């Protein structure tokens, strides 16, 4: 069992309205909102996982005074770039050329290692030729090679003539080395044909060509062309797709259409009939109709011949980009030989805004290579952090054993944890904690927060603290627990320890026993982890300086505004020993 470090998760208040943990009740979708506040938050509810975040993932809007999690933030894209070549991609390219790097950056389809372009030494036809001559020959070809697993694009029969713009070259090559026409070329060829010969000849030729290898891209283009021409037909009227929308038979168009279907148009004006029948089906491959090839015996034979490891795993297939060059969909990628190099997905740098007030919460430098941020309001500098430490008190029989991280908790034996709250802001905080007496779930552990209400001093300058240190030492407020034994007493309602901007309190836990009763399901994953939900409410006062209520050391304390923030957090304390 992996050792468990104590952790803290914070539930973003934005998911409150989504009424967590409510049993499915389709009849009353919004009725239970009223009593939602009384319910304790159950960290084990499956929905809870979607709203819990470590403190580091959270941002904070200074104007709304709210925590902003990745779910409740508006994003804007600063830069698009390729993670491999780090080239910035203009946003206009994205729409036309897709979401992948169109230069020469590829990932290995077998592992995910980066592929590099390597030249292939052609076997010298004449051994007497000198090396420089050979290098000068135009027959040098290139392949993509993975330096991690030694995969080479020659394995799928793909070689390149040029070492650059591999993406464009790859688009024209099928696995096995056969070339394919890109959409543009196909269109040009079609145009050429129609220019040269008569219409019928062109149609026949392109149909023959299309029938050979209609890949997805071509079929889509053909269909699009076909539908556009059908819809553009002036006779077509509205009967194109409009029947998609009306389900009822009440509309005149569907009525007349039905009449037309069953009467064969004899009762109607022939003109009307031709109008209604205008949008027809695609009939030829040129129009996008493709008959299925159901005979897969050759593929079965190939599967029969090949080893298990010759087939592509489902993760490999999933990481393949949608390949428009494949002739059909079914079982298209099955063997390793049909995998293709994966062009790198582009990435983005995003700046984030508060969705409510539109203020920027996080803004990275636009340059790809810098990792700095211009603006970054992380929640960690606004709300207190909580760190957890296990407290081992010296028992009656000897001194305390040092608490080891990941130590299992003994069931039904009280343990103490020190929670240290650290105040990051320049005002003193008033913290109120609330925790259910018993943790929710099948194995309730008893929880007692010994000091649920306390103040934390402001995060003043460190040097202030150092200068004042002498006074502080004598004052009774700071209780340093150096070595005096009498202070090893856990007292209810008392702060355990306090420093410049932090306060430690004690939580007493009686872990539940994980013994399963008869008829109970087995332990689920992580059910042995002791997690306690805790409601944290912090209050602080800032001077109300009008709009910009920025926190700063106060000059005039005449206008004080009270602020509060409340949220649920989950403290993971440790694993309970299983009986």
């Amino acid at each position: 069992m992996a050792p468990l470090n104590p952790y803290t998760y914070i539930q973003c208040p934005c998911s409150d309205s989504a009424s967590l943990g409510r049993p499915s009740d389709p009849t009353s979708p919004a009725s239970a909102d009223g009593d939602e506040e009384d319910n304790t938050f159950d960290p084990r509810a499956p929905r809870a996982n979607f709203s819990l975040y470590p403190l580091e993932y959270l941002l904070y809007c200074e104007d709304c005074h709210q925590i902003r999690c990745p779910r409740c933030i508006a994003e804007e894209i600063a830069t698009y770039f390729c993670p491999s070549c780090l080239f910035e991609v203009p946003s206009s390219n994205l729409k036309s050329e897709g979401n992948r790097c169109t230069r020469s950056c590829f990932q290995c389809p077998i592992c995910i290692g980066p592929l590099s372009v390597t030249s292939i030494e052609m076997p010298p036809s004449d051994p007497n030729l000198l090396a420089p001559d050979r290098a000068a020959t135009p027959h040098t070809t290139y392949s993509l090679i993975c330096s991690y697993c030694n995969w080479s694009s020659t394995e799928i029969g793909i070689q390149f003539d040029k070492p650059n713009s591999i993406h464009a070259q790859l688009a024209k090559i099928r696995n096995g080395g056969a070339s394919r026409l890109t959409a543009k070329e196909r269109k040009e060829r079609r145009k050429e044909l129609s220019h040269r010969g008569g219409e019928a000849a062109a149609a026949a030729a392109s149909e023959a060509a299309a029938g050979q290898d209609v890949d997805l891209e071509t079929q889509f283009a053909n269909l699009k062309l076909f539908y556009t021409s059908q819809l553009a037909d002036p006779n077509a009227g509205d009967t194109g797709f409009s029947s998609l929308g009306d389900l009822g038979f009440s509309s005149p168009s569907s009525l007349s259409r039905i009449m037309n279907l069953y009467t064969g148009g004899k009762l109607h004006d022939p003109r009307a009939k031709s109008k209604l029948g205008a949008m027809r089906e695609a009939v030829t491959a040129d129009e996008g109709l493709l008959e299925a090839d159901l005979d897969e015996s050759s593929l079965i034979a190939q599967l029969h011949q090949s080893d298990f490891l010759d087939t592509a795993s489902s993760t490999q297939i999933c990481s393949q980009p949608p390949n428009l060059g494949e002739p059909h969909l079914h079982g298209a990628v099955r063997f390793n030989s049909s995998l293709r190099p994966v062009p790198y997905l582009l990435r983005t740098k995003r700046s984030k805004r508060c969705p409510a007030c539109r203020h920027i919460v996080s803004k990275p430098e636009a340059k790809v290579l810098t990792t700095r941020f211009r603006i970054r309001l992380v929640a960690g500098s606004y709300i207190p952090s909580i760190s957890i430490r296990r407290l081992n008190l010296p028992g009656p029989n000897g001194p305390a054993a040092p608490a080891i991280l990941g130590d299992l908790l003994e069931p039904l034996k009280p343990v103490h944890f020190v929670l240290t709250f650290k105040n990051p802001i320049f005002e003193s905080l008033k913290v109120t904690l609330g925790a259910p007496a018993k943790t929710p779930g099948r194995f309730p552990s008893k929880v007692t927060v010994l000091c649920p209400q306390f103040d934390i001093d402001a995060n003043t300058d460190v040097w202030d603290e150092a200068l004042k240190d002498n006074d502080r030492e004598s004052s009774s407020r700071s209780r340093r627990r150096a070595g005096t034994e009498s202070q090893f007493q856990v007292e209810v309602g008392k702060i355990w320890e306090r420093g410049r901007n932090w306060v430690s309190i004690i939580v007493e836990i009686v872990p539940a026993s994980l013994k399963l009763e008869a008829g109970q399901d087995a332990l689920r994953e992580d059910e042995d982890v002791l997690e306690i939900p805790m409601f944290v409410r912090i209050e602080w006062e800032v001077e109300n300086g009008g709009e910009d209520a920025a926190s700063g050391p106060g000059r005039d304390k005449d206008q004080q505004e009270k602020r509060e923030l409340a949220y649920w957090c989950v403290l993971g304390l440790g694993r309970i020993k299983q009986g």
Partner: protein
Amino acid sequence: MSGLGSGAGAGTTPLPHRSVSNIRSPHTSGNTNPSTPSSSSRPVPSSTFASPSSLRAEEDLLILELGSRKLQIGFAGDACPRGTVWFTPSQLRRVGDFRDWSSESKTNVDWKTRKVTGEKWWTRDHELWEYDVREVDLGLIGDKVEKALREALTKYMLIDSRPRRMACVLPSGLPLPMLSAVLDSLFTRFQPPTISLLSSPVALTVGAGVRSSLIVDLGWRETVVTSVYEFREVNTNRSVRGGRWLVEQTHKLLAKHLPENQKKKEGTTTQDTGDYYLSFEECNDIATRMVWCKAHLSSPKAPKSKAGLPTLHEQDESDPSEAESPIEPSKMVKIPLQSCRSPTTIELPWEALAEPSENTFFDSQYSESSFDDHELPLPLLVYRSLLQLPLDVRALCMSRIIFTGGCANVLGLRGRIFGEVSKLVEERGWDGVIGKGADQMRANPKLKGKKGSRAAVGGPTGVASLSDAGGGQEQDGVWHDAANTAHDACPVEEQLARGQDKTPRVQGKMRAIESLGAWSGASLIAHLKAAPVSTIEREAWLQYGAAGASKPSEVDQKSAARQSLGAGGLMRGAAGNNSWTLGVWGVN
């Protein structure tokens, strides 16, 4: 100095220009689209988070297709989706939980320690929804959709979070509560001004270039056979034989060949206990990689069709399926397994790998009468759905069979189903009545006159009276129905028909066609600005929810149609209307 100053001025002036052009670029690119003329009359979306920028982002429409196990997303007009996100257990983990990346999870320690009983637990985390709404946490479905969509938007779409119009391609059998959960999640989390709904069978039909079709969706949860006639779903039949069964049968097969000490509990037989010895991921992987389907063996079964006694059928049928000698030399396949107790390699005969698909989709060793309605073998399911169709619809649908869904990738399965259905049609014709009595009656020439009225099981009586002719026309292969008889010589009509519909519609013969897929079909529909089944406005949804939808029949189609012809664009058919529908999903 002045030169320097002007130089600096020249250097700084391009900057605002560039930024302006950057901002405007999506707008200008939209102008080239044929869609922009309509944008002028489009109402301003008054979302709570409205900003000027939200107007421009509206230009591109996102199409997302939700399936049981994956979400596909892309822009309208693209040939295929830009990204596919599978629903996996790692999505259920908290943010910042990097357990999946630890070395331990690679060997599935996690899986080994977990004891899994019951199919539900085994597959649950890999699915988006369970159609049984009774014990489903709808909020969880919303969360899952949200998380997957967020991942897709960030990773594949690379777009910002400005509100965009969306179109959802959904299976038409989706229960209303789930549809409402999905819409809730989308509307509250992504703020699209409108969401259009499209049913996947219709989108598939459009993606194949036809107007009518028989969609055989070999899906994950179930196999759904939907007949689409003139872009409208007219009939649906379903069977629980789907991908999930296939993976389970694969597990069963692997477990059978697993050495006894690899199983977690000794002494139990594999078939009886609901325990799983291998992880879902591994079985799923093997099912997609190695499982194949035997070709349809028509020759040994064909003579028996003339015997005409179903009871004899089954006894005979069980023999050839077992005694059928493999055409290829039997070969052992080595399959490495990771998720059992210790990594091992098992050897299976190659033939055995066809068993899972055999058991899942055909179960041909059992008699037809032993199946419940919800678990019909697929050939029978397809045949029955064809049988239920009215005559002319059937004629069109049977020559436009579209196989789709994840299990269509099982090698040989499509051909097998197609072959068996053809054989069933050949054997029985379009007569829903089978059995001894029916055969006797058919043989009896005296009763022949009455037969038409008795055979009216499959369709409406008016049509079924023709079913005798339907059986007869199979031989000549030409379908004579009312729609085609109108080709009389009428000069006016001929003139009008010139350049149109010269080629007669293919009908009456079995034919399978390829579709680009539901997503691509939806992309076409959206690109061509056709009216979707229903379009829901954000405000209306947030205010009323699913209860605000009016019944599809109640909506005044005339006004909707008139509007759809107007400048507003066809995509928002019911926009100005106060009434909106949920289409097929809101019918019940």
